[in-house]
């Protein structure tokens, strides 16, 4: 097999950049959220501190093998997702490991972490974890649908499933972005995006007091640290897909940072403005508002 071993350090580099960017951006978004609430907000490095502290906790417990592996699955999912999609268009260095598969691989790999995490949380034996998972799965199953439709619409539009090719097709200035060539698909996808970010109005899954933050209720110490790491990688990885599919991708890191930030902001913006939905309400909401957009985008493309 003619494998370019340099891809491995390059991949580590991507992960390193994205992790750091993720930590900072997440904190920034939190800070923006705080400012909306007229608070000062956390220090920008707060997330690093939290992670170090969690690694620094001396004791931990385990409920069993799956419990132990849950966060590993979770973070593998995030890292894998990041690496299966090229980060910077036109850059060999940051095309990551996208040779392993196309868009479909990325879409399905999203569930790798979800599934592992769900299994791990479930093994804790905590009913609240299980309740959180049922809510999460129920909501995600519907929230992902408009995205799937939009992706498909885009794939039909460009007649390819390769992310690189899709980005390549959008390299003719802003008006060639899918955002403008296929606005229906983008709207559907952006609505779906709200549902998958675990922010209001769709965050009843991790209701803090009713089912103390749901699935991760039993996770702590280094498990939690791993999950925190994922929590900063995963949204970025996901947004990279959005960016590549709908917003022309990124040809350089600055462009990357900006676009990812802006897309993330969309969810934050909605989150601070709108109140919460119950799970069945959010399912219906996606069914009524987002899915038809997706269907329409497929029909007209």
């Amino acid at each position: 097999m003619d494998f370019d071993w340099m891809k491995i350090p390059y991949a580590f580099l991507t992960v390193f950049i994205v992790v750091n960017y993720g930590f900072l951006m997440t904190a920034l978004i939190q800070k923006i959220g705080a400012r909306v609430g007229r608070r000062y907000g956390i220090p920008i490095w707060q997330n690093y501190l939290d992670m170090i502290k969690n690694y620094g906790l001396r004791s931990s417990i385990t409920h069993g093998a799956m419990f132990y592996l849950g966060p590993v699955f979770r973070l593998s999912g995030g890292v894998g997702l990041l690496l299966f999609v090229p980060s910077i268009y036109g850059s060999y260095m940051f095309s990551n490991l996208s040779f392993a598969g196309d868009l479909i691989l990325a879409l399905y790999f999203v569930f790798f972490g979800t599934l592992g995490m769900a299994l791990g949380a479930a093994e804790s034996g905590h009913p609240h974890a299980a309740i959180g998972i049922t809510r999460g799965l129920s909501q995600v199953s519907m929230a992902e649908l408009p995205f799937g439709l939009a992706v498909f619409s885009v794939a039909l539009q460009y007649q390819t499933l390769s992310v690189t090719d899709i980005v390549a097709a959008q390299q003719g200035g802003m008006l060639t972005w899918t955002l403008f060539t296929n606005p229906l698909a983008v709207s559907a996808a952006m609505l779906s995006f709200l549902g998958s970010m675990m922010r209001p109005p769709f965050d009843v899954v991790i209701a803090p007091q009713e089912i103390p933050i749901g699935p991760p209720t039993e996770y702590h110490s280094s498990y939690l640290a791993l999950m925190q790491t994922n929590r900063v990688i995963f949204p970025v990885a996901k947004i990279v897909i959005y960016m590549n599919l709908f917003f022309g991708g990124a040809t350089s890191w600055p462009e990357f940072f900006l676009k990812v930030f802006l897309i993330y902001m969309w969810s934050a913006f909605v989150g601070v403005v709108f109140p919460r939905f119950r799970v069945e309400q959010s399912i219906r909401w996606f069914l009524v508002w987002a899915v038809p957009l997706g269907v329409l985008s497929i029909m007209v493309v």
Partner: protein
Amino acid sequence: MKPELMKRMVKGPDGVEFEVEPLRDYFCEVPPTVMPAAYIKIVEDLFNWARAESIWILGFGTGCGAIEMRPLMTPRFDAYRYGVQWRPTPRQANLFIISGYLSTKTLKRAIRAYEQMQNPKYVIGLGSCTINGGMYWDSYNTIKRLDDYLPVDLYIAGCMPRPEALLAGFMDLKKIIRAGKGEGANQYAENFAWYKENQKRVIHDWDMPDYNW
């Protein structure tokens, strides 16, 4: 002893009867151990710094002082800027604030919640009642001296202390932690028998394992 914790005979699907002893079968009976600090001092210092700057409080209001904690989240006090935040589950919390008088009934829950937090963990006694019983010094169902039951790192006196006092308390706690003196969890493990004895003296319907993992 509650009936659900008593030994009982259970018949398996294959028809064989066997005994189930809930306390033994459902709960881990290992006692807590003293957890050593990181071997390299600089690492431990880093950790202590991080611990001090990232204080996660268990969202469990045990008494009237709980009302004083809420304002800390508001724009007026905004404890978040100090790295303080509330967590709904003891597994992820580092700091347990006993907010005011602690009835024996709540003590049991407090003990359980405390034991389920991970080492290192800190306890703040908020208000006079946690120091000596305060105005409830002669009450039949509150404890007088929190230190007998849980290792307290810091007391904040007052009845009730205002949120500002609480904030000041956090600052002091940070100092303690950064100095590596916030070893309440290890203290608890070292004197486990003594604490248990005290706890069991006031809690008459003890219906849980000695240490709640």
